[in-house]
């Protein structure tokens, strides 16, 4: 095992080193003004790790507060602002950009054999917009934070005493970053595929990036305008959503969920893309059905726009509307079910090897399938009446968002770590990390299903003492999860400098990004690539495949 050496040596450029996107320049300017999609991906990765830590600290404080009913460490107003900021930071600063902007930026052009994205300068602009938006939200925190819940339901958001206006404005800025990235990815996928990369020869991760980009470009502007109106309502008291001035608060909920339900797929689709890449590589097997995954991605992207009403079953929508949204929600669940079956069947007649990313795959599979099944349960209307706005819902979406997206993000971090950094991570420490993440997560959120069943509403500062045992188990679980995250980031940081040099294709994969050296050169491939075999062709040895 490597010992921690405090004086971390800066990698020096030895003459024998071949040129990579990392070592061509080390100046601050070469990072701050880079238009290289790989470097921009790294900028995003580092920034999102910071935002994840911020949101994670909020989560730990919130859970610790629940060790006992009544006040434990913070007061009610602080609690309310903190759960709001936890939601905002996790959703808009971490979850939505995490996989698409970091791994999508890094990998999408490589996977289709392009030299860069279609609009590299816009890509950099998008990063800075993201940075400014994130800082703006942090400034809003400074100004006292926002206590409306991440949903900003009117009319509470019109009259909340907290810093609503800076918060929504920060999110408005972040929205444009998302949109620009989405446009960039759509155009890149359409126009820049190298010779041999037909639509149905793209790695499936590219398909999910494409689906995500469609949602990002079409849903985000609706959120942008809705939040703008919330800000204006709060600031100038124009009352567009305020019933006291003739507005309609339920209309706001429709507009908000028209974005925010598809946003759930912005968060989970990239995770699904990572998972299929991981399972194919480590099973040495083509996906059980390429087209099923590609089409179900598009299905989720489009049908996902027509299911928002299932967030409003008790908000006073008509029985007919509720039934329509109910059946559409069942339909969109089918697309996820197709994906789940394809992942599992991919391992059939494969050659499976267990690595850290593969452990995360199993964690993902378990949590996503169980969490997804509870999603079908809450889409069942009469059951949702009881569960709506309780801890059951909290547990359900954390199973998808943390159990799904975060484990997939960790899988991606390990799986592509050699490609991105040119170093290997320590496998055994990885096993420990993955096991800790899974157990901490399960311990945190499983009790919350039972709390929800028992009728514990969410966003409650205080609670009935009879819930305390389950609350304490959940809190202790969150500490384990927090420790697991620190553990993981720590050994990856050490491996960044001390890890063994990675070969071009350490996983013996056939996907296109492994055909170029690790880390890749500035233009991804040394010469214009022509891909002669599909990215999941495990019928021939890796040596016979060239770009």
């Amino acid at each position, binding site marked *: 095992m490597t010992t921690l050496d405090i004086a971390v040596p800066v990698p020096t450029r030895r003459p024998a080193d071949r040129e990579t996107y990392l070592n061509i320049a080390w100046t601050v300017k070469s990072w701050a003004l880079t238009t290289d999609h790989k470097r921009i991906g790294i900028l995003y990765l580092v920034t999102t790790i910071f935002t994840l830590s911020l949101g994670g600290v909020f989560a730990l404080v919130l859970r610790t507060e629940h060790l006992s009913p009544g006040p434990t460490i913070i007061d*009610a107003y602080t609690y*309310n602002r903190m759960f709001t900021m936890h939601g905002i930071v996790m959703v808009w600063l971490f979850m939505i950009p995490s996989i698409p902007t970091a791994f999508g930026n890094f990998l999408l052009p490589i996977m289709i054999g392009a030299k860069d994205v279609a609009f590299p300068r816009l890509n950099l602009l998008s990063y800075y917009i993201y940075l400014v938006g994130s800082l703006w939200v942090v400034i809003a925190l400074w100004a006292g934070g926002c206590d409306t819940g991440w949903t900003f*339901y009117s*009319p*509470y958001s019109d*009259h909340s005493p907290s810093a609503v206006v800076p918060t929504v404005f920060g999110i408005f800025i972040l929205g444009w970053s998302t949109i620009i990235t989405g446009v960039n990815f759509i155009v890149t996928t359409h126009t820049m595929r190298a010779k041999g990369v037909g639509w149905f020869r793209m790695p499936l991760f590219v398909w999910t990036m494409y689906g995500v980009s469609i949602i990002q470009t079409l849903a985000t502007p609706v959120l942008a305008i809705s939040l703008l109106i919330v800000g204006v309502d709060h600031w100038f008291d124009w009352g567009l959503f305020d*019933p*006291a001035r*003739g507005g309609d*608060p339920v209309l706001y909920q429709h507009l908000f969920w028209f974005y925010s339900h598809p946003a759930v797929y912005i968060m989970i689709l990239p995770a699904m893309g990572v998972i299929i890449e991981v399972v194919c590589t480590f*099973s040495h*097997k*083509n996906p*059980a*059905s*390429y087209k099923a995954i590609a089409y179900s991605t598009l299905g989720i992207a489009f049908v996902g726009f027509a299911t928002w009403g299932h967030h409003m079953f008790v*908000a*006073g929508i008509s*029985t007919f509307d509720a*039934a329509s949204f*109910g059946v559409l929600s*069942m339909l969109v669940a*089918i697309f996820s*079910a*197709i994906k789940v*079956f394809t992942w*599992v*069947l991919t*391992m*059939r*007649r*494969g*050659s*499976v090897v*267990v690595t850290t990313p593969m452990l995360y795959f*199993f964690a993902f*599979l378990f949590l996503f399938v*169980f969490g*997804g099944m509870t999603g*079908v349960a809450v*889409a*069942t209307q*009469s*059951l949702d*009446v*009881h569960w709506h*706005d*309780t801890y059951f819902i909290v547990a359900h979406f954390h199973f998808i968002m943390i159990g799904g997206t975060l484990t997939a993000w960790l899988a991606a971090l390990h799986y592509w770590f050699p490609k991105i950094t040119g170093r290997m991570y320590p496998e055994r420490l990885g096993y420990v990390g993955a096991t800790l993440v899974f157990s901490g997560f399960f311990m945190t959120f499983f009790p919350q299903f*039972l709390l929800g069943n*028992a*009728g514990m*509403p969410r*966003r*409650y*500062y*205080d*609670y009935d003492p009879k819930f305390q045992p389950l609350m304490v188990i959940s809190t202790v679980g969150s500490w384990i999860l927090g420790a697991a995250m620190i553990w993981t980031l720590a050994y990856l940081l050490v491996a960044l400098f001390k890890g063994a040099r990675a070969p071009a294709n350490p996983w*013996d994969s056939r996907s296109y990004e492994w055909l170029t050296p690790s880390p890749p050169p500035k233009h991804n491939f040394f010469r214009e690539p022509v891909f002669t075999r599909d990215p999941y062709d495990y*019928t021939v040895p*890796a040596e016979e495949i060239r770009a």
Partner: protein
Amino acid sequence: MNSLLLKLLDLPPQASTYAFDVDLLHYFVISTTMLGATFVFVLALWFLVRNRRRYPGELTARVVTPVPVEFLIIGGILSVFLIFWVVGASEYSHMQHPPEDAMPVYVTAKQWMWKFAYADGRSDIDVLTVPVHRPVKLVMNSRDVIHSFYVPAFRMKQDVVPGRYYTAWFEAQETGEFPIECAEYCGVSHSRMLAKVHVLSEPDYAKWLENPPTGDLAARGRDVAAKRGCLSCHTLDGQPHIGPSWAGLYDSDVKLSDGTIVKADVAYLTRSMMDPQAQIVDSYKPVMPTYRGVIDEPEVAALVELIVSLKDQPIAPSVVLPRTQPLGSAQPQEPR
């Protein structure tokens, strides 16, 4: 079996008539989905054990799942999901439509308390007193922000929205006290916005009723109707005017301009006040303005009680009015 599952899933007691049905579906959905999820995960583990890599660089044959198999899997799952949907949607519809003979209680939510007003003029704060085995219909509105009326033991929840009147109903099956919680985040003391339902047996309820009421809501309704200008378009004696008469209106079947027939229940009446253009009565013009934000909660309760009290009002001989009423004559009028 039922009590075992209740304990296992940590569910509260089933204190309303529909709670058991909801829980039955709950058991079915949870067991089916959890079995399905377990099957998927065990299958994955089995593939892992059976197909583990024997030597580095092992190659595999290209296997593509046949399309019929895919459709079989999709069809199978979809049909199970559709069963959930059909049962869930019909139960939901049952929970959304109060029975006709339900006893109304007017609920006003505000930060951070619940106020209950009864038809005979009584009112109470944070305690809802109802008789057992009698359907109760809640007509709900909020003074400030959105709240949500949640009784876990009844498996019922309904958002309470300012400017709108929503109805919800339940029929208690057990006597006792059951907690009411606010389930929509409403500000700093959201978690303290608690109340309770007090379900009394028939004799106890009769005893509770012996306390004298404080006023007659329907009588107050006449004052409100005059003050707010309702009577310039609606009559109380059955004559059609610019708008339909209120006599005999409650609980009758109303034909709408699009041909559908609706029951003139409390939900219909409150919606017609707040959102008058939504359901236009056949052969009337859509000229009524919305009263959202114009009249307050007690006034709505009083108007509804007035209309209910006119249910069996003898209808006066009809006078045929010219069909063309001038536009703009329907603004809320000043008190006369």
